[in-house]
């Protein structure tokens, strides 16, 4: 068993008791909710006549179904309007703060928590969304829960969990030109498998991780779940504290910041912490990664050949065969040159300001290929506003991208932003599952925002390192 890791410390600090079933009851420091997975939980509370225990530690937004075009009420889509109205009613009754589109603070739940400073080191954070692991970038213990567990958290501000093992993933060296956090996590998932993290929490460490900004760390922690790990984290450091000092929570309260900083420092993993497993990956050897299949583990470097199913481990062969049939790719080919119909820049993985900046540097002075519809969906209203202040919107619009409102959008195709037929999408999102982007014949190729930008302007999967960048000046 691990000892002295951030995970052990945060777990112990939040443990209320051990339940008769052997699970631990953990206090939840921050409960984030959204419109899709919470209404049934509120319904269950009403059935049992239970009130929300800690509305002050609960925060709501709308992201999954919210349209990224016309957001005027009532929403055009009746089902979406019903879900939005239901959330509004639930939070009003319970006294929970809601960042709806009229506030200027709305956005993807995993973007707004960190940008407002709600997400802090040493916290336990839960949300009815598997990408809650994102918040681990700040040294929080953050994980996705189902609706029945949302009910538990609303009712008690606690959740029943079993303690997991801790695997340290050390990414050494310096990343090459054009290589991003997204390429690191796709490499990790490829190496350890989509189920390699089941039973584990991932601690990301090493020079290549520590040199990333908070947004890059979020991209990595975000996709922990794609590797089977329900939670992943990075130990907080000066980069983390600098981010936090600028947030709503602390910018006018340096005293509280200093007070909590000593707590944050106390929960980092000890130098002599014990791990259940340690994996080392050479970050300097990573090149831009794209997926060729229908699981996030089916990735390759841009110059690598698509593997033959028979060369893969026995349990991966059948999945690979079906994936190659769906994607219409052949072993021995590279993904470079794969035709793209849609370029999607968005999602809780990669729709923060530096993601948009990096993509804009590729897009500037170029045009979206005639065969491609390109869309940019900022992660939050604040990201959108900041990008507009820098003129990024103009860069994208001039190139022919559609510049949209904040939301989850085409990452999961719950609003109108969907693939049609067998369209192929270069996507900065996190899942390339069959049907994920709204069309069961749609084809998703996961990649970094820079690589999406490159694919958008060339009409095919392209090595971003071959396209010179142009600085975008505000």
């Amino acid at each position: 068993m691990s000892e002295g890791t951030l995970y052990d410390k945060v777990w112990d600090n939040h443990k209320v008791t051990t339940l008769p079933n052997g699970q631990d009851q953990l206090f939840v420091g921050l409960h984030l909710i959204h419109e899709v997975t919470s209404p049934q939980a509120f319904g269950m509370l009403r059935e049992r006549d239970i009130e929300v225990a800690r509305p002050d530690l609960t925060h709501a937004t709308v992201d999954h179904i919210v349209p990224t075009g016309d957001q005027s009420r009532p929403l055009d889509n009746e089902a979406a309007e019903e879900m939005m109205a239901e959330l509004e009613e639930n939070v009003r009754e319970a006294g929970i703060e809601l960042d709806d589109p009229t506030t200027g603070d709305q956005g993807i739940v995993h973007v707004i928590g960190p940008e407002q400073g709600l997400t802090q080191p040493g916290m336990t954070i839960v949300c009815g969304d598997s990408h809650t692991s994102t918040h681990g970038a700040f040294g929080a213990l953050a994980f996705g829960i189902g609706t029945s567990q949302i009910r538990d958290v609303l009712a008690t501000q606690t959740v029943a969990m079993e303690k997991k093992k801790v695997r340290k993933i050390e990414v050494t060296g310096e990343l090459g030109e054009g290589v991003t956090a997204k390429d690191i996590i796709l490499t990790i998932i490829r190496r350890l498998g989509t189920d390699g993290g089941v039973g584990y929490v991932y601690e990301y460490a090493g020079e290549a991780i520590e040199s990333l900004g908070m947004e890059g760390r979020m991209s990595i922690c975000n996709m922990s779940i794609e590797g089977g790990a329900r939670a992943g984290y990075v130990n907080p450091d000066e980069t983390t504290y600098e981010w936090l000092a600028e947030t709503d929570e602390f910018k006018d309260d340096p005293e509280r910041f200093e007070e909590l900083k000593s707590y944050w420092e106390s929960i980092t993993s000890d130098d002599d912490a014990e791990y259940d497993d340690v994996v080392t990956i050479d970050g300097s050897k990573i090149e831009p990664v794209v997926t060729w299949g229908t699981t996030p583990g089916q990735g390759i470097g841009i110059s690598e050949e698509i593997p033959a199913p028979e060369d893969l481990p026995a349990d991966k062969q059948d999945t690979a065969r079906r994936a190659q049939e769906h994607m219409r790719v052949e072993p021995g080919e590279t993904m470079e040159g794969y035709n793209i119909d849609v370029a999607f820049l968005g999602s809780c993985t990669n729709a923060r300001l530096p993601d948009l900046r990096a993509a804009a540097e590729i897009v500037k002075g170029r045009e979206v290929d005639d065969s491609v519809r390109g869309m940019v969906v900022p992660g939050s209203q604040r990201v959108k506003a900041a990008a507009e202040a820098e003129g990024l919107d103009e860069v994208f619009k001039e190139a022919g991208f559609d510049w949209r409102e904040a939301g989850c959008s085409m990452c999961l195709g719950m609003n109108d932003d969907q693939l049609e037929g067998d369209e192929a999408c270069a996507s900065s999102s996190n899942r390339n599952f069959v049907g994920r982007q709204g069309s069961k014949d749609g084809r998703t190729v996961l990649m970094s925002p820079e690589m999406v930008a490159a694919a958008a302007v060339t009409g095919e999967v392209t090595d971003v390192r071959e396209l010179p960048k142009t600085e975008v000046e505000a």
Partner: protein
Amino acid sequence: MSEEIPSVDYVEGTGIPVRGNDIDTDQIIPARFMKVVTFDGLGEFAFFDQRFDDEDNEKDHPFNEDQYQDANVLVVNSNFGCGSSREHAPQALQRWGIDAIIGESFAEIFAGNCLALGVPTVTADTETIEELQDYVEKYPDADIEIDVEAETVSYDDRVIEVTVDDAQRKALVEGIWDTTALMKSNTNAIEETAKSLPYVEDSEPRKGHADD
């Protein structure tokens, strides 16, 4: 409402095999069916895009086949239920008629969601699972018994060893898988934990604003 939680120590019925590794929750229930504020009626959308083509014609899928329509024990392969945390996935399966799932391995959030519904997720090795899937295909009406407490599955005069996660087994067998009331009873301990955390500002629980 009464908080009587039934024990789920035993599931008996007939099987239905769904083969393939990494079957994700987007396959189990596509996101477009989640634009609902209750879980009612999700059963008919289980595996929808695997079961129907664009013109709503049935495709080859076990959930479409006559011989499995009364099945309640789903037999799957590895990393079943990976992807999203949507409880809509196990809700759809349960509402279709599934009471227990036997597989090589399960994604964690999915297994946790199943437990919250009282649906056991029991595991066995690849060979054992494939044998069971073959058997169910051949004898769809044959009886399958899952003994959660003893961690066995019985079929065809055979008793195979399976694994049920410790906490899950205890929770199901003792009827403590619905944790709300259980955890709510620890109010004082919850308060104490909250008070001990430097970042929790006001550890007095607030009342909901039911009247504003």
